[in-house]
């Protein structure tokens, strides 16, 4: 049986794990009347996926508006400016990854 790593008293090389309470965003029960945001991360097929999402939502709900945004590049987070725009102009946001 393998001895536990703790029994050797080695210095743990891993990050110090911490926990914190995070409040989830409120779950939306009704999308009609809301403004939808779409983040295109610039992967090849993301635009097609997001078009599909928009069609599907519009079919089921009366959206107040749809605001689309393209990130600068897929491998980096959205900029602070982009995030601020989404906060100001949308009530919920859908992001996608699609090679």
């Amino acid at each position, binding site marked *: 049986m*393998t*001895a*536990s*790593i703790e*029994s*050797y*008293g*080695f*210095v*743990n*090389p*891993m*990050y*110090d794990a911490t926990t914190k309470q995070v409040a989830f965003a409120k779950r939306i029960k009704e999308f009609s009347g809301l403004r939808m945001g779409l983040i295109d991360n*610039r992967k*090849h097929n993301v635009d097609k996926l997001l078009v599909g999402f928009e069609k599907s939502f519009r079919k089921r709900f009366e959206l107040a508006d749809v605001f689309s945004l393209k990130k600068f*590049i*897929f*491998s*980096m*987070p959205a900029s602070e400016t982009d995030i601020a725009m989404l906060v100001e102009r949308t009530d919920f946001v859908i992001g996608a990854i699609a*090679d």
Partner: protein
Amino acid sequence: MGVAELLQLGDDVIAMHEALFASGWTDGLPVVPPTRARVEEFVVASGYPADYEVAIVPPLDKVANIEKIAANSVMAGCLPEYMPVVIASLRASVGPKLNLRGMQCSTQISTPLQIVNGPIRKKLGFNCSSGVFGPGWRANATVGRALKLILVNIGGAVPGVVDKATFAHPGKYTYCIAENEEENPWEPLHTEYGFSREDSTVTVYASEAPQTILVSALHDNPGQPWDLLDTVASMMRDVGANQAYLGGEHIVAFSPEHAATIAAAGWKKVHIQKYLFDHARIPIAELKKAGIYGREVDKYHLWPKWVDRTKDDALIPVARDHSDIKIIVTGGPGVHSVYIPGLGSRCQIAKVEVPAEVQNGH
């Protein structure tokens, strides 16, 4: 557990190594046990206190302090005196232009390549000659491995879990070289960033695996570098590479023999860079066949503005400026050089600070 206790383990040393494997701390290879005593030696060798925070490592954005860096360096098999180079490697790796976060989570193949410059190479025994990318030199092998263990153990880029590289490449175990400054007919890499030859630095590049460039016959233009450089440019014209649409920096590593041939013709680095910038270009017709966006040319938002996208014979440069093609000299005798494709980001560099400098507040 101290050294004396380790020596008492006998056959139980296998159980200890199995426990290390089971802990998830290793890269799949055996590690040196990070005993408290050995880690403390490494902390002292850094010149910093154990709780000094060196970097925040993505993608989990966890703190790499000196003690954690030391523990990973012990495990990698480093000597205590390698700590300043590991610290500089990490500092460079988290520089914003490298895009470590993107690299750590991507399906793409890149991993940080460390290029060591300055007197520290000889002082610590870094190889910069034959076999520079391969095994056999403790400094290269372990300093490279220490960084990779840090990126996983502290940054959280666990292979297959967070690090989603489709293939990865062996550089994810260790990928550390030194420039052969002694046989470099031009200025060493770090001086391009404002450092003096006497400074020791680590430059980190988001790097794929090296691709060999064999050129031994220059029949048509003997003594001139055009045909050699045309071969280099042909390697850079890779439709399947990130840089075909992202640009970013590239590294061309000439062997001393190739470098001497080019320099003997009176060419300096800038001449090489400009030649490659002009010749390493891909026609739009080729990029439309496949690559990342294929026919949807309007999606290639990072191509230069001056490219006419309506023309299939328009040429897209793989670099946005000639200065983005970094030229180094490394390796030993032989008519091989290497082209090292990248992620599409930029190199970052950090100075190696020895303990005396740390304690003097430099």
